[in-house]
Every structure is written in C-alpha cells, then in structure tokens.
C-alpha cells in the first residue's frame, strides 16, 4: 500500500480543532501575562503545529495564512515584538480566520474570502516584508535532469567524528549505486594510524570513486548532505575517452550518406560490400522466378500419391523451405532504415518554420523501421509534401496558438512502425485541422461533390486528394500549387500503398501512409470468376460468406447491399467490373468476399475461392499499361496469369461514385 499524506487529513482536522481550542485558551491569558515565556512558546507552538500539519496534509490556504502568523509569533516569543492590545486583537482575529479556513477544508463552509487586510496587519506587526515566497509545500526532491551521462571522480574523506553522529560512510557511499554506475572505487588508507593509536569510534578511511551518471553534481553531492560540513567532498567531472571516436564515426556516416543515398545499408562494424543496386534487383527477380517455379512443382505433385513417391515429396518440401528462406534473406538485403528518408526533415522544418515565422518542434519516432529500398526512395517526396503542408497550412502562428490556449510551439510528429504486414508512417500536427466548410465549398465548386449532397466528414476529408484541389487562398511558395495531394496519393498507390487522413478542427491533422513491406511478393487468396483467376491481397480480406436471399436488398432503387450481422455493406459485382463471363450472377449461389481498406468495407461477388498463394508481383505498367482496379499480375503454378485486384481503389470507387449497378433482371 502506498502511504499518502492526505490519508491522514481527517486525523489532522481533529487535531487542528484541538490545537485551535488550546490556542484560544492561551490567548485569553496573554494580555495579563505578556512576558510569560512559556505562554509565548506555547502560543507559538500552536501556530507552528497548524502550519506544519496543514502544509503536510494538503491544506494550502491554511498553511499560507498561518505561515505569516507563525513568523510573527516567533518574534513575539523571542522578545523582538511587544505584546500590545493591538497584537492580541490581531491574534484573536487570526484564530477566527484559521477556524474558518479549517471549516472550509472540512467542507462545512465554502468560499471563505482571503483575509488580505488581516494578513497585512500581521506582516506589519512582524515588520516582515510579506511572506517569504509562501509556504514551502512538499516538493519532489528527486528532479531527474535529462542530460547525457558524464563521468566523475568523487573524493570522499569523512570527518573524524562522523560516526559519532550516527552516520555510516559506507552506507552513504552505497547510495551512489542508486543514481550512478560505479566504475571504480579506490580506498585511501593513508590517514590510518597504527593500531595502538586507533580510535575505534573515529573515521580514518577515505575513498576515490569513479562513476558514470546522468545526474547533476548537486544531486550527487546531496547524498552526502549530512556529513558535508565536516568531510572532504570533491566532485570532479572527467572527459569521457570516447568522445573523439564518437565524433569520427558520426562524421564518417554523414560523409557516406552524402555520397550515395540509395545504396545498400552501411554497417558500422564488420566487413561490408558495396553492391550496385541493379545486381540486387536482378537477384530479387531471380528469387521471384524461383518461387514461381517452386509452386509449379508443388502443383505438379498434386496428382501424385504421397506414398508412391515419398522422396519426391520430401524434396519438394525441402525446396519450399529453402526457397522461402532465400526469399526472405534476399528481400532483407533490400531493406533500409527509414532513417534515410527522415534525415532531411530536421533541417527542413527548422528552415521552413523560420521563414514562415512559426515555432515548430519536430518529433521523429521509428527511424529504425526498415523498408524496401525502392519504397524509401519513393516515400521521400510524399513525406516532404505532407510536412510542408503541416508547416504551411496546418500549424498556426505563435500568436494564434496563444490566443487559443495552445502552447506557442507547435509540433509535427513523424511516427513509423510495423502494423500487420505493412509499414505505417504517420505525419501528424497539432495545428488547426481541416476547414471542412471550405473544402466542401471547393468540392462543390469543382463539381467533385453535387451541390445538393452533404457527405459525411470522412468523405469531405477525402476530397483533398482530388486532382487540382487546394484550398490555399493564394499559391504560396511552399505548397498549395494545387497539385499536391493527389500526386501524393497516386505515388503511394504506385507502391501498393495508401494514404488516409484524420482531422479534428482546432486540434490537428494526422496523415497515415501505409506501405507494404515489400513490393515484390504478396500473400494472396486466389479466386475464380468464370474462367478467370484473380488474386486478392490476404491482408485486405475480412471474411467470406454465402448470403441468404433475405440478407440482400436494394438501396435507393439501384445500389445492392447485403446485411452482415449488424452492418450493411455495398456489393460489388466483380464480373461486371472486370467484364468476365460467368454463370454465377446470383450472390446466393456465389460467394461474397468482404474486404476492407482504410476503415471501409465492401462485399465482392465472386464465383468461388481457390486457395492461398504467394504471388510474385509482376508489374502491369512494365509489361502492358496501368489498369484501374488492378495492381499487378502474377504467374500461377500452372503457368497461367492471374490478375491482382486493387482493393483500396475498388473501395474508393464504390463509395465515391454512385454506382450505376444495373442488375440483370
């Protein structure tokens, strides 16, 4: 159980009542016995006791008032202030006030006004210039200062008589372990007299301790407070030996980073090789081919009995394990820390914020998160755009911030982390958030949103990703050319990533970028529509189901929806979207696959699900051209081509345009 002073408030209340009663009865004698030292002492002690207790047990008003009174009474008892009729008046009035304050603290009265005039009288009588900074309230003596570790040598030579006061030098030294790493401790027995002259109650031994700590010198010396006056206590900082080495390593890394920003990651110890990026890319491709070939092999074994060819199956399984590991390791070579992409931001923020006259703090978390090298390169521009946006449009000037009760210095946070099979990078600011009214107006102006519709906040927010969309009043130097956000989004989509945004007016905006760990290989679920095979990214799939007729319905006469437990989801007929011929047009005969992207769900109608595969992603753009609704293609084990569905794109299309889903009767 943690003992807290306030647990004893009630005990103090009871005690205070008694003390005040005693004070009253003593005060009644005061006028006849002005020079009775004991009486004066007792009166002083009453005030002292109330002051100490109220400060300890959490009654600041009473403590503050009594403090002045106690100072006055101390002077009275030492004869510096005379006992006059006026003094007694003041004392009685003070007693009344203390009773009031106590009663307020116990909840019996409320709103007791400050006895300003009385306090002034008290101070005047005591000839003090006012409370000396008020009553000290318990403060936490442990202020840990945030500073880096520093080495010191502490010489501690206890005075001869410290043990006679009950101090134990060894115990004092032990305390060092709580706040520092003790690197060395050397005993100094040079003062030790011969045994015959030794006084067993005296201290002769001294110590020189080398320690490493991030605490400040006064915190270290404070440990020896009790014996400081009679002991030798010298604390000397010493320069850490490794500073110069640290500087050299830093310089080295900086130089390398300047020369070749995109190469294989530099390791500071052990042997490294410089490898041209194309060689690694070709290796990745080869591994991709290997994976496809291996799955072809697996497919080919489907028709064979395990028992008839046990060694074949063993070999295929071993091959699968080896190629999976090879794949992981090769992909690992291409992984580079995000630190690289983040490196430019401290300087960028500093320069930009100065030029727009705003105070901005940049916090970057997760620099060690690793990402495929190509993705890191592609991430640079979008990130920069978001940061510039935050500085230019998101964060307010110090004046505006102060006026709205925010700290003058705004903050931008870049936070990278792993989430599921993805890397998430969030750029957030604590600025003024999006002006949704303005965005909606602009959206209507540009025809992006019909004039009679009022979409939800989420949809309004997504308008900023439309081409040519910018609500900057004037085109500023930084951003606001109106070509920003849509390019950001399409850049990210090209990397199989996505971006979403959350904004709270007055509080700030957060952009969330999601990127796959690698662009080359994806876990997918293959499905059939007619005679065609398609692949869905596994991470986007929630569940699949065959609906009952009563779960289906039509909204606004044209949008098909399905009820799944307590949600109503839009149905997308993939065979129509992709123009694939199939006999399965009734959802109750086919399968509805519920997919999700950026918080939104949709139900895709397919014929059937086939199996889970690892798909080596082949680019459509490189081999054909960009196709809406698809993010790539892959070669299946049997050699046929399967197209990979772009789930985010599909969902976005579904929600934005009222789908003219004409149902075949």
């Amino acid at each position, binding site marked *: *159980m*943690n*003992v*807290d*002073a306030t*647990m*004893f408030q009630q*005990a*103090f209340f*009871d*005690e205070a009542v008694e003390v005040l009663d005693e004070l009253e009865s003593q005060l009644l004698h005061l006028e006849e016995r002005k020079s009775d030292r004991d009486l004066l002492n*007792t009166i*002083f*002690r009453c005030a*002292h*006791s109330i*002051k*100490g*207790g109220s*400060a*300890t*047990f959490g009654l600041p008003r009473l*403590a503050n008032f009594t403090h002045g009174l106690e100072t006055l009474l101390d002077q009275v008892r030492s004869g510096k202030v005379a006992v006059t009729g006026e003094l007694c008046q003041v004392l009685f009035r003070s007693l009344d006030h203390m009773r009031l304050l106590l009663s307020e603290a116990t909840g019996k009265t409320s709103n007791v006004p400050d006895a300003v005039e009385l306090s002034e009288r008290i101070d005047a009588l005591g000839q003090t210039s006012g409370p000396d900074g008020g009553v*000290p*309230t*318990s403060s*936490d*003596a*442990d202020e840990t200062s945030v500073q880096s570790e520093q080495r010191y040598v502490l010489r501690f030579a206890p005075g001869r008589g410290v*043990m*006679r*006061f*009950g*101090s*134990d030098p060894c*115990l*004092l030294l*032990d*305390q060092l372990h709580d706040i520092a790493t003790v690197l060395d401790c050397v005993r100094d027995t040079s003062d030790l007299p011969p045994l015959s002259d030794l006084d067993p*109650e005296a201290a002769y031994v001294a110590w020189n301790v080398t320690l490493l700590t991030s605490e400040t010198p006064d915190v270290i010396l404070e*440990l020896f*407070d*009790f014996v400081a*006056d*009679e002991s030798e206590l010298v604390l000397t900082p010493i320069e850490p030996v490794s500073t110069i080495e640290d500087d050299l390593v830093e310089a080295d890394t900086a130089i390398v980073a300047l020369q070749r920003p995109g190469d294989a990651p530099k390791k500071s110890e052990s042997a490294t090789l410089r490898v041209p990026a194309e060689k690694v890319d070709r290796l990745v491709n080869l591994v991709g081919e290997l994976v496809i070939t291996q799955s072809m092999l697996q497919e080919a074994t489907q028709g064979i009995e395990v028992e008839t060819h046990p060694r074949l199956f063993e070999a295929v399984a071993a091959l699968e394990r080896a190629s999976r590991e090879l794949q992981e390791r090769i992909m690992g070579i291409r992984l580079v820390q995000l630190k690289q992409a983040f490196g430019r931001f401290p300087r960028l923020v500093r320069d930009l914020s100065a030029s727009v006259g705003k105070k901005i703090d940049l916090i970057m978390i997760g620099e060690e998160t690793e990402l495929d090298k190509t993705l890191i390169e592609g991430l640079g521009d979008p990130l920069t755009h978001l940061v510039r946006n935050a500085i230019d449009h998101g964060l307010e000037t110090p004046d505006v911030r102060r006026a709205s009760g925010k700290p003058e210095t705004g903050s931008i946070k870049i936070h990278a982390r792993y989430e599921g099979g993805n890397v998430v990078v969030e750029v957030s600011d604590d600025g003024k958030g999006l002006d949704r009214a303005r965005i909606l107006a602009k959206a209507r102006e540009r025809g992006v949103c019909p004039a009679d519709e009022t979409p939800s906040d989420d949809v309004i927010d997504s308008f900023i990703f439309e081409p040519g969309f910018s609500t900057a009043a004037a085109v500023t130097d930084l951003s606001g050319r109106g070509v920003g956000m849509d390019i950001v989004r399409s850049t990210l989509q090209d990397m199989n990533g996505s971006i979403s945004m959350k904004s709270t007016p007055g509080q700030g905006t957060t952009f969330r970028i999601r990127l796959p760990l690698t662009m080359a290989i994806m876990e997918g679920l293959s499905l059939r529509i007619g005679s065609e095979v398609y692949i869905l990214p596994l991470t986007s799939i929630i569940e699949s189901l065959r609906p009952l007729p009563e779960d289906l319905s039509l909204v606004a006469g044209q949008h098909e929806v399905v009820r799944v437990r307590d949600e109503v989801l839009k149905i997308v007929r993939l065979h129509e979207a992709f123009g694939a011929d199939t006999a399965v047009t009734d959802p109750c005969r086919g399968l509805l696959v519920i997919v999700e992207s950026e918080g939104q769900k949709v139900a895709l109608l397919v014929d059937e699900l086939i199996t889970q595969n690892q798909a080596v992603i082949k680019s459509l753009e490189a081999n054909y051209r960009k196709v809406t609704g698809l993010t790539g293609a892959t070669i299946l084990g049997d050699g046929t081509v399967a197209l990979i569905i772009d789930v985010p794109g599909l969902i976005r299309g579904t929600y934005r345009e009222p789908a003219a889903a004409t149902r075949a009767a």
Partner: protein
Amino acid sequence: MPKLVLIVDDSSSMRQMVSMTLKTAGFTVLEGSNGQEALNRLDGAPGGKVDLIITDLNMPIMDGLTFIKNARTRPSAKFTPILMLTTESSDQRKAEGKAVGATGWIVKPFQPDQLLRVIQKVLPA
C-alpha cells in the same frame, strides 16, 4: 528482525502518518509526544536501544534538541542515527542539531516517500 524506530512529535496526525509509513515499510514503531516521553520509551526498549530516532523539534515539556542531547548520553544510543524534523534547513539549524549530536534532518512538510528515502541514508536496507 524488523528494525525499531522511535518517532517523537507532539502532533498526533504527524505521528500517525510517520508511523503508518514506517510500518508499511516493515519497521516496528515506538511513539512519544514530547522529549521526556521519548526518553522513557527509549529506556524501556529492549536493551535500551532502538535502530533509528526521528524527532520533531518544537515540543512541550522537553523540546527536540534537548531530547537529542539527553539521548546521546545513553551508551546504547551513542551511534543510533537521529533525524530531526525541521521546517527549515538553515545552516544555523543544522549546526544546532550537529552540536547536540543529530545525524541528519528531514525538511517539513514532506511526503511519506521522501521520508523513506532519507531513512535509507542512515539505515542499511
């Protein structure tokens, strides 16, 4: 054997708080409401000895400094750590304490955990 602490203070709420704090931390506690009572408690303890004394200074009948001076005359209390509860840590106060044989001080007002931290300076864990 749990360590025995003698707490001396004329404020009963203060004694309660210190006593509870110490007991929760595993100590056994003796109490006195002024210096004279405290001396009696000390003499009545097993072997006339306690492991630690914590005393207020402003008390009726016998104040803290006098109590400390007297306590130190007992051979069994010659090296016992004695902590003063003081509202100020002025050099004068410290010197007065040292003169009568106090080991150290705790500044009032204090929170229970601060008390335990200071005790660590003079009493092995």
